[in-house]
């Protein structure tokens, strides 16, 4: 489902319609909707990111495809960062989740292309991140700058502490309004 919102450019130009779902995300959703094994996709919604338990692998865009054949099930995933240490755990949890549903012969394939992008996170996922205390990836404006919004108080007045945070996908920020530090999910 692609929704849209009216917005005004900063220069007060005519409103333009910006889709809330990125084309990349829309493509993933289309793949899922066209898949004949809906029950498996739904089942796999239970598998969460071990580091960010409010997001499922589907929400993150790590889960790319589920293919059922006579020989078993192939699950295709893509790594967020190439050295993400959580990938093996995610693969184990996919197996456990499908085994609990009586599905055996599970093959897990890693696909590198197209490279994972934070554009695969949809609005619900970004909202879930915010509620969990992590600032979702910000859009970059035409000057190449990002406004990172504090997930605690909503202030735009924030500063970088470190380009790298508690995991490869996050940076460390601090809010200058409420003075709380927070994790920022880096756009990639």
């Amino acid at each position, binding site marked *: 489902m692609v929704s849209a919102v009216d917005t005004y450019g900063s220069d007060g130009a005519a409103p333009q319609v910006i889709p809330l779902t990125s084309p990349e995300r829309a493509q993933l959703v289309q793949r899922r909707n066209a898949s004949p094994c809906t029950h498996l996709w739904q089942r796999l919604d239970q598998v969460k990111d071990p580091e960010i338990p409010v997001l499922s692998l589907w929400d993150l865009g790590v889960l790319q495809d589920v293919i059922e054949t006579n020989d078993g099930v192939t699950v295709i995933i893509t790594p967020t960062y*190439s050295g993400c240490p959580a990938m093996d755990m995610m693969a184990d949890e996919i197996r456990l989740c499908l085994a609990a549903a009586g599905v055996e012969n599970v093959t897990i394939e890693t696909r*590198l292309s197209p490279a994972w992008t934070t554009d695969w996170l949809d609005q619900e996922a970004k909202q879930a991140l915010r509620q969990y205390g992590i600032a979702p990836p910000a859009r970059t404006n035409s000057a190449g700058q990002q406004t990172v919004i504090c997930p605690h108080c909503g202030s735009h007045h924030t500063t970088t502490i470190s380009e790298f945070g508690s995991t490869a996908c996050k940076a460390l920020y601090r809010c200058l309004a409420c003075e709380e530090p927070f994790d920022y999910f880096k756009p990639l």
Partner: protein
Amino acid sequence: MSEQIDTNNADTLARFAIRLGDDALILGQRLCEWSSNAPTLEEDLALSNVALDFLGRARMLYGYATQIRGGSEDELAFTRDERQYENLLLVELPRGDFAYTMLRQYLLDAFEDLYFAALTQSTDPTLAAVAAKTVKEVDYHLRRSTDWIRRLGLGTEESHQRLQNATDELWGYVDELFETDTLEQGLIKQNIAVDRADLQTAWCKRVTELLSASNISVPETPWQVSGGRRGLHTEHLGHLLSEMQYMQRAHPGQQW
């Protein structure tokens, strides 16, 4: 893997993937040495995260090589001797002080930014996919190392001196970044690999501009060394490998 590559070419391709993997693994191992030793907690996290990116890249490249010619990632990492490693000399040098680590990182990041952007156009789809993944991560590495060069160069007298010393020591290793041997030349002709020499002008311009802006003088080093691609290493690689490979050497085939 494309079907039209013959066995000879497949072996060349595997060796190319392995040497790019060697660059990543050895630098990843060096960066890991900073874990719990970095000057600040934030730097500790950052260096460890950058190291993870390099280890992940090594796994993707070794994984591709084993798809082509069998074997395992672990065998490649833990059972080869130093003469079988084909990494650049620059990545195996001891970590030195923080200025030395960050300067090496910057010199490489600036190179990789150009190299992997070009490699995304490789006619080999797997290498192109690895490059597309890598180039996004390099963007972060480069942003951070650029920032540190500026801060150290324009910081205190001591930080400036340390960065200048690092530049004087490391400059003799940069030419190797742009060297190609017959193995890479064959792959360049097929548009699988990237011609390193093509990147040298852009790299030099970018690096000397930043160093000058950071009050660092670029040395006119009378010496340049290379040899990593031929398995001829500095004395430091053997020590690194003996530490990294200890467990698999003592208990072959050991699993966690």
